[in-house]
């Protein structure tokens, strides 16, 4: 049995989590997931501004902090913190923790190969809209293939303490140590599927140990000290989901079910880079306090294509807010919205979209929200987006005048003019698997 933990559900997750996982109980592998769909484009921009950047900058100091415990307790780290510059990230890790050997998995970054792919006839059509990537070719900011667990397992085989990847698929981080440790092969579909399910269960950190959980949420103990998830994996593919003793949160089949369904598409076709898992075969069993056993997972042949994560510049946006108090708070906010729109119109500003919400009334649940007759306050929130940065910038100056020139009782404008943000949009596409050739480099 090996213990695989996840100490980072996204970049920005709790900084203490990985430290506590290593120091508060036994684990063999610590996985850390830093990348969301558009993170790569942000990192690409950072690299363009400074060639030594373009990775998750929280990662090297973290390794510096836990290096001694990692070595003492024989814990190895697998992370997709490399972003678009895994070599620079590895060098920064070596600087922060000189005794740590780092293996880097390369080959996922295809930003420089788009034209080569187009020349070969790959359309890289948007999986949602069907549009060919040529529609946004000159605005592409990053392009990466979601790579699988086998290159990560090869990197573990080098004996490195830290395995660092760019856009490794989230579930692959947990599957890799199982392949490495148990010697699973490329056609062990059921086992690979089971390991991918394990990865999916822990990839969002505490969403499987009681965080963001609807079931008896008021009774979930000690959330301030919540335990991050650990999988106890067996060679036959079955595993137990748990957390360290004396930590907060709750591991129960109800909680694990919520996470299994999180961001799920067709449950019979959960497509990972290394296999397809059938979520309708998963069997869950509560076998003790904070222990859920997972078995029965069936898988089948991996897909011929790998998924590409392409990001591109798609205009500008800004969101501004103003708070109106009782009485008639909602009516005041509605009239203030009309005033802003009238002024934008009179300035001749054109946007692709102007979108208004009334927080405290209907923002989250829209048409299905239950009306609250006369709420104590309502926050007006107006957003605009469009290709014309100047128009968006002008919009950001049109809210504050409402304080003196709109309905009574406006407040909450203390943060001033809202920022104009570039929209980096996501373009999911496919590329034949053979085009992606992973390689491994070792530092230290």
């Amino acid at each position, binding site marked *: 049995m090996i213990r695989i933990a996840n100490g980072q559900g996204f970049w920005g997750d709790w900084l203490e989590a990985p430290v506590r996982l290593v120091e508060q109980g036994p684990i063999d592998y610590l996985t850390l997931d830093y990348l969301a*769909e*558009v993170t790569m484009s942000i990192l690409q921009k950072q690299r363009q501004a400074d060639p030594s950047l373009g990775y998750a900058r929280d990662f090297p100091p973290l390794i510096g902090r836990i290096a001694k415990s990692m070595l003492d307790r024989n814990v190895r780290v697998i992370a997709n913190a490399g972003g678009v510059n895994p070599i620079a990230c590895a060098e920064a890790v070596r600087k922060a923790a000189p005794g740590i050997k780092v293996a880097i998995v390369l080959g996922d970054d295809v930003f420089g190969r788009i034209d080569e792919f187009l020349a070969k006839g790959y359309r890289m059509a948007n999986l*949602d809209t069907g549009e060919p990537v040529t529609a946004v070719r000159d605005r592409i900011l990053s392009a990466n293939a979601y790579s699988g667990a086998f290159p990560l397992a090869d990197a573990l085989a080098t004996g490195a303490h830290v395995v660092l990847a760019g856009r490794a698929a989230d579930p692959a981080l947990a599957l890799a140590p199982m392949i490495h440790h148990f010697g699973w092969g490329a056609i062990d579909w059921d086992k690979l599927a089971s390991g991918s399910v394990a990865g999916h269960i822990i990839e969002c950190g505490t969403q499987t140990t009681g965080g*963001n959980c*609807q*079931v008896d949420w008021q009774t979930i103990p000690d959330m301030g000290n919540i335990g991050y998830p650990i999988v106890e994996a067996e060679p036959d593919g079955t595993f137990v989901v748990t957390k360290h003793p004396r930590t907060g949160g709750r591991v129960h089949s*109800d909680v694990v*079910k*919520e*996470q*299994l*369904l*999180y*961001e*799920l*598409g*067709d*449950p*019979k076709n959960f497509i990972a880079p290394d296999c397809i898992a059938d*979520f*309708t*075969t*998963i*069997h*869950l069993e509560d076998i003790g306090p904070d222990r859920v056993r997972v078995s*029965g997972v069936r898988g089948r042949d991996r897909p011929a294509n790998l998924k590409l994560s392409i990001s591109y510049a*798609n205009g500008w*946006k800004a*969101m501004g807010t103003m708070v109106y108090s009782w009485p008639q708070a909602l009516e005041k906010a509605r009239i203030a919205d009309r005033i802003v729109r009238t002024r934008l119109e009179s300035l001749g500003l054109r946007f692709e*979209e102007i*979108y208004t*919400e009334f*927080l405290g009334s209907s*923002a*989250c*649940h*829209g*048409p*299905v*929200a*239950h009306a609250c007759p006369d709420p104590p306050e309502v926050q007006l*929130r107006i*957003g*605009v*987006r469009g290709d014309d940065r100047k128009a968006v910038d002008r919009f950001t100056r049109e809210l504050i005048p409402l304080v003196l020139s709109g309905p009574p009782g406006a407040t909450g404008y203390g943060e001033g003019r809202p920022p104009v943000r570039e*929209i*980096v*949009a*996501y373009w*999911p596409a496919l590329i034949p698997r053979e085009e992606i050739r992973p390689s491994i480099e070792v530092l230290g």
Partner: protein
Amino acid sequence: MKVPLAKIAHTRSGDKGDTCNVGVIVYDARYYPALVRELTAERVKSFFGEWVKGKVERFELPNLGALNFLLHEALGGGGTVSLRIDAQGKTFGAALLRLEIDISE
């Protein structure tokens, strides 16, 4: 007998681009047949009304006592494009808990 979905099930929702997924899980397996019978894709589509511009797909996971719904074109463009406060559809699952469903045998 009609009850709000919240009485028999819990939910979790999230995003994939402009598609919102809502997982609905019964607390007690004996309510699963009623859930499958009552909570159709059409009902979810009409419940959310103008907020779901595309189609609604439904998938069954009897092993988990769960249904998974995909609500297409439901997030105002999705991800970084959407201007909504809940661009990732994190609260869609909670919204669905209001829906009244008939749990008579």
